[in-house]
């Protein structure tokens, strides 16, 4: 599946952000995001993670992370 892990923004530098998900950090471009992005926001990244695709609410992100944690725990990832 093209499942995406919502990633938490830990740093913003211009049009680039450092995001974290499941203990992994990486850089992503904010060029495709219209809204203001701040540290603590959650982003869904496009395939490959080069570009952030969407900003999602904390509630939605945490629900998705909880589900994906179950996927990981059940060995389905």
């Amino acid at each position: 599946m093209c499942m995406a892990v919502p990633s938490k923004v830990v740093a913003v530098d211009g049009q680039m952000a450092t995001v974290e998900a499941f203990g992994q950090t990486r850089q992503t471009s904010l060029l495709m995001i219209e809204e203001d992005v701040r540290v603590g926001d959650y982003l869904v990244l496009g395939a490959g993670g080069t570009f952030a695709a969407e900003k999602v609410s904390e509630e939605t992100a945490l629900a998705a992370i909880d589900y994906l944690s179950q996927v990981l725990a059940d060995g389905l990832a």
Partner: protein
Amino acid sequence: MFTEASLHVTMRVDGPSVRTVLVRSTRMVQAARLFAGKQPAEVLQLLPAVFSLCGTAQALTGLAAMEKAAAIAASPAQKAARSLLLLGESVSEHGLTVARDWPLLAGAAPSLDHAKRLRHALAGLRAALYPDGDWLHLGGGQLRPDTARINTIVGQCRDTLTQLIGHDLDELMQPIAFMAWLQRESNPLLALVTNRCWQGLGAGAAFLPMPELGPPDLSARLQTDREGIYLARPDCAGRVFETGPLAHWHWHPLLTDLTDRFGTGLLTRLAARLVLLAESLREMDEHRHDLRGEPAAPLPRLDGQGLALTEAARGLLAHRVVLKEGLVGQYQILAPTEWNFHPEGALVRMLTGAPADQDLELRARLLVHALDPCVSCTVAVE
């Protein structure tokens, strides 16, 4: 550690050509099993959150499957609103591809401004239809279409795509106009394909388009797929269909013309993306006339099983759900990538026997792009 799913294509060369093509997938095709035991509404909230590229299609296909299971018939206005959302996502995805990925594949600068304008315009579509945000309500949410706003959104998409392509998209659907546009080299990727004479790349392989209503044995195969083998490697009596823009629109006059000239190769596949964009905008125009205001539907008891199919941006998407006493008992998702990147699927058919020259890896990347996987995909030559 949660690793993002991906595809890995390895071409094994023997002498002058590719002898075998191996496709390894780490896609989580059985992850939807964990929806079992959840409330349908909870699953419908999760679907757009965990699917990065086609969240709207995933959620709407899930909604349709649950409605079938519960014998709920959505009204024509609700169906029109959902079609608008689905088509909007396809326009956003393929517009992004043309604006961002096509120039990058040709070594040119991406047109990110156009991609952003498309996304920005379409981001307002849900609110223009369902201002209360209940677009995933079973039976249909509170539909209050803002016709003026929807007209503006469709108009902005059309204008942005015209500027991006440098030609009116509808006119470009005429074969004569398309060939003239192609010769002007107004698009860097299509210019690369033309200059290198790669229009017919992959055209020698068998073209097996997905039937319009999906594989005839889909429901039976899903019902008996206890181990998830079919979900990972689907087939229909041994045939592995191709799904996506060319499979869906192969009868379109522009694509039949290009197929006559170049076969179902790279150029025809790339042109199918443009056909999908033009036809999606035309269909969005049509669906606008079927919209009308409606209150949210009351929720009935949810029991039964349902299978729903959607032509998503990358092809046929299937969701099957079993509802028991108001909860999800079983959930399966079959996505287009499992067909197109099957070990015996369209990509493998197109690459097997390909000349093993210095351009092989680039040509393989272009064919991977033409089939449009929904996860990242590496290509290697051994």
